[in-house]
Structure formats: structure tokens, C-alpha cells
């Protein structure tokens, strides 16, 4: 393994000189109390599964485009990708933050339970598919079938949404500022309540997104496709 600790205290890991497997093993071995709080991954060259399964609250900067599943299963780390991300970025994230400075491919934030995923560019199809509590802020547009079967959490889109937004939606909240090509089955526009506006404002602030809450429309489940009972609303 060839990692070097820079004078700044940042651990620099060059994937041109050492194996991805060693990087992920080193990151997986960190305890929550680690002193190695900042990591920089150089020459990612689109490799798959970079920085997956990290459970320590460290910050990781990946210096370039990444392939599939970057920061997948993230639980507490703050991962910044200085480039585009391939399919499934931050999939099944539990907590922490993943920040994509470029575009994300399909299924960004898929099945994620928690944490915040911020995408500065566009996300393609199926963004937030089956999301289970994650907050996703996309500053560009999202592709078709985004938030398909989304169960809980919030998807904020500053640009447009592709076809069949929120198809078979459960209790996730969807906020879109631009045009929605079409809504999926059982997804409907909702009144922007004070509670929803407050959630949206908080997410825009956390994602450092400059946009007015009043410019967004709010979408949610019509609750006709699944056995929803209002007494259980607090469980979502």
C-alpha cells in the first residue's frame, strides 16, 4: 500500500500506485475515533467501488471521475467526488454526506437509508430509486423513473425531472423546481405545507443551493397503490 500523510495531516492515497482493495481495506479498518480524519484519493480513473462501506466519520476527497457504487453503504463519512460519478453513487448510504461535483449516472442514492447526497450537476435515470430515508439534492435535472418506489426521505431537484417521477411512491417527499415530464403511477402534486416548505428550506441550506422555496412544486404519494393507514403516518 502506498499512502502518504501530507504535512496538512491529509492521508494521500494514489490509486495509480496502489490497489483499490488496499484503499478500501484501510478505510474499512478506521475506527470512529481515528486520528486520520482526512483522506485524499488520487487517480481514481473511473474505478468501481471506491470508498465503499466506510463507517468512520472521516472526510474523503476523490480527485476525479469514479465508476460504479462510489461511497456505497457509506455510514458517517463525508465523501466529495471531484468529477462525474458512475451508476449507484452512495447507494444504500446509511449516514454521512456524499457530494458529487459533476454529474451522476443512473440510480444515484438507490435504497439509501440516511445521510445527504448532493449532486452539483445532473443525475440520470432512476435517481433515488427505492430510497428509504436519504436526503438527495440535485442541482441539475434528473432522468426518468426517479424516486421509483421511494419509501421515505426527500428528493430535491433544482432542474427538471424526466418521465414517471415518483412511480409507485410510498412516503418520500419530492420537490422539483423545473418541469416534470410526467408523474408516475400514484404520484401526485401536493400542497406545499409549512412543514414541507421548512424541510425544503433546510435541505437547500445544507446543500448550499441558491433557490427560493416558493419556486418549487411538491409531490407525494396518492396512497392508492398500497395499504396506507393514516394512523401509521408517524412511522414513515
Amino acid at each position, binding site marked *: 500500500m502506498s499512502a502518504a500523510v501530507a504535512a496538512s495531516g491529509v492521508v494521500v492515497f494514489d490509486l495509480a500506485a496502489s490497489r483499490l482493495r488496499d484503499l478500501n481495506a484501510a478505510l474499512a479498518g478506521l475506527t470512529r475515533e481515528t486520528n486520520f480524519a482526512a483522506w485524499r484519493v488520487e487517480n481514481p*480513473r*473511473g*474505478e*468501481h467501488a471506491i470508498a465503499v462501506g466506510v463507517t468512520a466519520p472521516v472526510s474523503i476527497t476523490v480527485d*476525479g*471521475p469514479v*465508476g*460504479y457504487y462510489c461511497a456505497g453503504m457509506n455510514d458517517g463519512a463525508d465523501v466529495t467526488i471531484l*468529477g*462525474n460519478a*458512475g*451508476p449507484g453513487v452512495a447507494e444504500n448510504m446509511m449516514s454521512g454526506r456524499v457530494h458529487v461535483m*459533476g*454529474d451522476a*449516472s*443512473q440510480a444515484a442514492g438507490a435504497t439509501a437509508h440516511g445521510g445527504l447526497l448532493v449532486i452539483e450537476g445532473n443525475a*440520470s*435515470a432512476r435517481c433515488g430509486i427505492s430510497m428509504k430515508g436519504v436526503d438527495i439534492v440535485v442541482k441539475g435535472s434528473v*432522468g*426518468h423513473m426517479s424516486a421509483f418506489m421511494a419509501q421515505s426521505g426527500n428528493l430535491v431537484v433544482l432542474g427538471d425531472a424526466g418521465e414517471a417521477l415518483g412511480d409507485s411512491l410510498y412516503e418520500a417527499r419530492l420537490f422539483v423546481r423545473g418541469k416534470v415530464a410526467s408523474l408516475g403511477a400514484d404520484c401526485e402534486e401536493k400542497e406545499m405545507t409549512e412543514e414541507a416548505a421548512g424541510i425544503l428550506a433546510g435541505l437547500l441550506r445544507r446543500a448550499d443551493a441558491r433557490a427560493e422555496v416558493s419556486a418549487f412544486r411538491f409531490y407525494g404519494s396518492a396512497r392508492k397503490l398500497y395499504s396506507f393507514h393514516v394512523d401509521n403516518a408517524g412511522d414513515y
Partner: protein
Amino acid sequence: MCGIAGLFLKNRALEPELGAMTAGMLSVLTGRGPDSAGFAIYGSGMPGFLKFTLRGPAGFDFGAMAAALDVGFSVHDDHAVIGVPEEREGRVRAMLAQKFPQVAIVASGARMELFKGVGLPDEVCRRFGLEGMVGSHAIGHTRMATESAVTIQGAHPFSTGPDQCLVHNGSLSNHNDIRRKLVKEGMVFETQNDTEVAAGFLSWQLREGLKLDEALGAALGTLDGFYTFVVGTETGFGVLRDPVACKPAVMAETDDYVAFGSEYRAMADLPGIARAHLFEPEPSKVYFWERAA
């Protein structure tokens, strides 16, 4: 799975590097398709001549064949490229069919040469000498077979018209129906492969007078299934993804080239990639580049 690599050069100074760049991309895509590999490369043509890419059995004496046909030739492992004067095209085809039935015509055209074989992409590229090949654009494929057997015939690219080739990641569901219709239109198919039908459909549309971008648009309404296609013509390079767009695709464009990769990894070594415009081609949208011949 399956991997696709495509390169369309805008800067002619890069033409001597085309083969090496394409070989590098295909090597990275081994994991997506280790069964077989192939590529089409658009090199220089000679006015008045057509190129036939031929495939013979192992150890076949292409020299004797070329002498009998009275054509120039170059050998690339079990493939050979012969230069056929345009006016003798019909006669050479007839002679090949009669005297050399063991030789298959893989492709023909003014500029395109097409090679494919079973084995790991690195090995296939080395056998044919891709690294040293020169040209304006190239399209390659690494195959993980799903719809038909692992054979040379099932390897991509498929060519069903002069200077036309197509590679495919995905699988079609209505290819038998479309094949039957195309056969009635006079198209000839060599295999039961789904991708050959897509290639044949585009060739038929081009034959009917459509331009490549129009033919790709027509494919959207006709072909059912999963696909990311990259297609080449003598001067053009096109990309099309089905409306669901399950199959991955990344593109990079600079002042010097347009590149297609199933994954960004395949493009990581291209010159100037750090400054390239990287984007994911949208579903159901025809992408098309052309240059003056």
C-alpha cells in the same frame, strides 16, 4: 454485460494513434466481455477499389487465394483484407463463393476493415495487430454472450452493408419478427443473432435512402428490447440508447475526438480526457457525428 468502445477523430493528427487508443479501451473492457472481441476500423481507401475483409480457416493460404483472384492483400491472423477493383466486385464475390467456400466475407466497403475473434480482448487485438492500425474512426466490442453462442459469428461488430457496422450492448426481444420482415425486403442474415437484425434494419433503412441519424430514429420505433448501439458508416458515427436505458454509456468530447465507452474507465487514458466534456447520452436520443470524406 458486454463492453463498447468507440472513437471518432476530429483531429487528423491523431489518426496514426487510433488503433492503439482503441486497443487500450477494449483492454479495459475485458471485465464486461471476456468471451470474444472485435472491431471495425475506417482507414484510408483507394479510389476505384473496395476492401473486403475475409476470414478463413486456421492456416489458410490467403496468398494463393489472392493470386487466383488477382487482387492485392494483407493478412491479419485468420483474417485478410483484399483490394478489389470496383468493376470486379461481382466477379470476385462469385469466385470466392465458388472456389473458396471456406472463406467468409466479414465485411466490405471503401474504407472499413472488420476483425473479430473468440478470446480475451487483448489477445484478439494482438492477433489482428490493432495497435498499429491507422484510421479516422473505430468501433469495438467485448462480448459476454447471452442471446446466442460464443462463436466468431456471434461476435461484434456486425456488418450488413458497405462500410456499415454496429455493436450492441443489450438484447432484443422482437428480432425474429423483424428478421422475417427484413428477409422479405431482400436482406440476408448469416446468424440467428439479435444484433445482426439491428444492423440489418439500419442497413435496410440506409438502402432505402435514409441518413444514418434518420435510420437510428426509425430503429427507436421498431426494435424492442434493451440496447445501447454504436454504429459506424464511411464518414459517420452514431449512438442510440433505448428508452429505458439500462445499459451503461458514457461519452467524452474534445476538440480532437468523440469517444464512447460503456464505462468511463475505458476512456481514462485518452489524451486530454481531464478537459473533455463528459456526458451520459440520453435515452431515445439519436447522437450523430459526421465528417467530410
